[in-house]
């Protein structure tokens, strides 16, 4: 909150921050191909300058502040307001055009310019009335409401609103395709369509301003490109997994070996075998309560109310190569909630979220040279999730959660007295792995305009027994 409120300060800087903040978009590239930088034509006052923030004072003097304080405050305010008065001007060579169609909740892009369209908009087949009166299906570029508002707002797109007027009577340097829209009209009419709320839009534009690529997780239509296997199940464990997770394998093995498993005496020390007379096996035999995220949660679905905790956006880092038509698996997935109406997520809600999320690779220790031959689980994304954990060799198997095989036949793996393998193998640090968790979701909490991002991850403590 503080950062949005305590912004400007009295000193209006001489050097405009506009020069410091590089605009990566078409405006800069436009200057190169002979176009004129029209921002230079605007009187200096119209160009926004971010007021510098400086030291704040503790409190105003009694009676509303001293004269100096009032003066400084006045200058700070006018610096802020001056920055707000900036107008959106874009060169005609760089601006895109679109037509907002409220009935579809889409903006049809008629002229697409600039790099924004490499990560925004999708093509959708729509039936058009051809010249001879025959309907035909044609693909065209469409924007979701949040994409349209964002582009209008940053001055990259001029948007018309679809009208039923005969527009052939209006002509000029550019084609008039409807009623011209203001940014205000974009906010008024586009927010509320296609599941877009102001909170979600604010999160969208916040992340876009930071340079992320943001797409919808749930495709609004079947034409909307989705990454492979994210929406579809990686989810609930199979029946076999559920049943087997109820009975840890060693327990079933024990019970098979020693008859019925006694809950009051979980430890059975064999008289003849020597292998279980060490701490490892003792602790292992004490872990007899089924645990971990593989164990299904006791469901208490009494009322079917849709949880506000639904993944809404997929997020790609600016560095991730992004192809609009075939998006890769997202780097992050984001839930947007309203702080005023939504309580903390319940365990059920978190579990439901994690059920649809992909598993993350185990983090590797930093700054080690990679060992040839080991697969590199440092690649982000869920694709490597399945084989991420068991990448280690048998040498350091004792550092890993015991494998199924090992748990079934612990005697086949006498605990090595010398556990040091000859070659230093990169081992994941268990604490880093626990901290990072196996699955991760980002929750954006919006309280009337101020956004906080929280990261919830699913720690897998059962997979990293310390003994």
């Amino acid at each position, binding site marked *: 909150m503080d950062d949005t409120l305590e912004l400007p300060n009295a000193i209006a800087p001489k050097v405009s921050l506009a020069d410091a903040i590089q605009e990566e978009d078409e405006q800069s590239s436009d200057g190169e191909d002979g176009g004129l930088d029209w921002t230079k034509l605007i009187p200096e006052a119209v160009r926004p300058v971010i007021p510098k923030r400086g030291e704040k004072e503790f409190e105003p003097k009694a009676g509303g502040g001293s004269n100096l304080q009032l003066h400084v405050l006045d200058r700070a305010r006018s610096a802020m307001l001056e920055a707000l008065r900036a107008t*959106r001007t874009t060169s005609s060579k760089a601006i895109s055009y679109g037509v907002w169609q409220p009935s579809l909740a889409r903006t049809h892009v008629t002229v697409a310019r600039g790099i924004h369209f490499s990560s925004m908009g999708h093509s959708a087949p729509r039936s058009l009335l051809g010249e001879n009166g025959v309907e035909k299906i044609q693909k065209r570029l469409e924007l979701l409401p949040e994409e349209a508002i964002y582009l209008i707002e940053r001055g990259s797109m001029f948007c018309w609103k679809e009208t039923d007027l005969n527009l052939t009577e209006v002509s000029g340097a550019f084609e008039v395709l409807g009623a011209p829209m203001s940014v205000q009209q974009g906010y008024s009419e586009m927010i509320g369509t296609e599941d877009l709320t102001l909170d979600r839009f604010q999160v969208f534009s916040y992340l876009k301003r930071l340079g992320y690529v943001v797409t919808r997780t749930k495709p609004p239509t079947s034409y909307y490109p989705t990454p492979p296997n994210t929406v579809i199940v990686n989810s609930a464990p199979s029946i076999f997994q559920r049943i087997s997770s109820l009975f840890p394998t060693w327990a079933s093995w024990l019970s098979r070996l020693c008859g019925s498993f006694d809950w009051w005496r979980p430890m059975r020390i064999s008289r003849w075998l020597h292998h279980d007379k060490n701490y490892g096996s003792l602790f292992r035999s004490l872990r007899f309560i089924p645990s971990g995220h593989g164990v299904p949660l006791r469901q208490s679905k009494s009322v079917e109310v849709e949880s506000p905790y639904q993944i809404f956006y997929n997020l790609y880092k600016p560095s991730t190569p992004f192809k609009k038509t075939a998006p890769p698996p997202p780097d992050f997935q984001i839930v947007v909630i309203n702080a005023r109406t939504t309580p903390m997520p319940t365990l059920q809600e978190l579990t439901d979220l994690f059920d649809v999320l992909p598993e993350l690779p185990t983090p590797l220790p930093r700054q080690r040279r990679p060992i040839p031959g080991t697969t590199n689980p440092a690649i982000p994304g869920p694709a490597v999730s399945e084989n991420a954990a068991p990448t280690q060799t048998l040498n350091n198997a004792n550092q890993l959660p015991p494998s199924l095989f090992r748990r079934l036949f612990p005697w086949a793996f006498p605990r090595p007295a010398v556990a040091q393998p000859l070659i230093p193998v990169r081992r994941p640090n268990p604490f880093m792995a626990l901290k990072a968790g196996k699955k991760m979701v980002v929750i954006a909490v919006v309280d009337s305009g101020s956004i906080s991002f929280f990261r919830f991850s699913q720690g897998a403590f059962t997979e990293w027994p310390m003994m």
Partner: protein
Amino acid sequence: MSSDRQRIPLRIAGKRAYVWDVDDIATIRAQYRLCGVLTGTLPHLSQQNAFLGVPLVLMPEEVALLLEIDAAVLIDDPKSHIQPTMPELQRWNAGQQESIRAQVAFTETKSARESANAGRAMSEDALRKRKEREERKKAEASRLAEIAARSDGDLLALSEPTPAQAPPIHSDPAVSAAGNQTEPLSSIPYAVVVSAPSSSFEWYNPSGRFYSSLEDARAAGVWDYPSTLEERARCGVFSGLWKQGFFMGGGIKFGGDYLVYPGDPLRYHSHFAASVLVSPISALRPMEIVAHGRLGTATKKAHLLCGWDDEKQEVSYLSIEWAGFG
């Protein structure tokens, strides 16, 4: 209508209140000591989040307060955007064409002058002189633009229900340097202006969609805050603190509902993080007190517990600070 003129129009869409006019933002801040949150992307500085631009989104408590003191009027914004009629659209288009022509003419004269100067623009002295000339020209242009904008604003004000500021379309300096020749427009670039407020459109018409009281707005389904006990408590606490002269901002990052500032947050640090309790006898877990005390101390703030008594319509305040006895 005259009383409505002094009231600040809040554009309501989807039960959220927006302020699009910078002058209104100034009034709300200076006169009514309310901050709201700026949320829009700032034009020309669109890749940063440090300072955002219009619209100003007001907290619902701020809207309720402005209504309570008869300082604002709610406008049903989606319904105020009416489809323009043909003549209106034609007039708008004519204005655009005029602006483009002026800009193109300006560019042409400028580039002509530059090419004429090209040969002797080498020496340092010449460069310096040119710079001076350009600066003078710029100042002149901005002055003329201001004049043009003012006169245009007056013209438009006749047809507009709200006291509009000059539409940005006309505020381009090129207007003043207009020549009137018609040229092939496609080859020379010109500036396209996307206007932020709709009030520059002739067809934007909020008249008849004003709601000056909470009851009216609620009956029309435009606005309904506060409607629950919790919302009433928040409004009660908010206006209680406001009436004592404090400024309030959102306090979610400090574990409270509001941050309470002794003066404008532009210049002063907040003293309290306030949290609202819906009744003076509502249960409070000791852990909350510990957490509030801890966080407050770490951020040099005292935590303020504000208990709302819905029957008596009053607030009782209690502040928590770490005692610091070692």
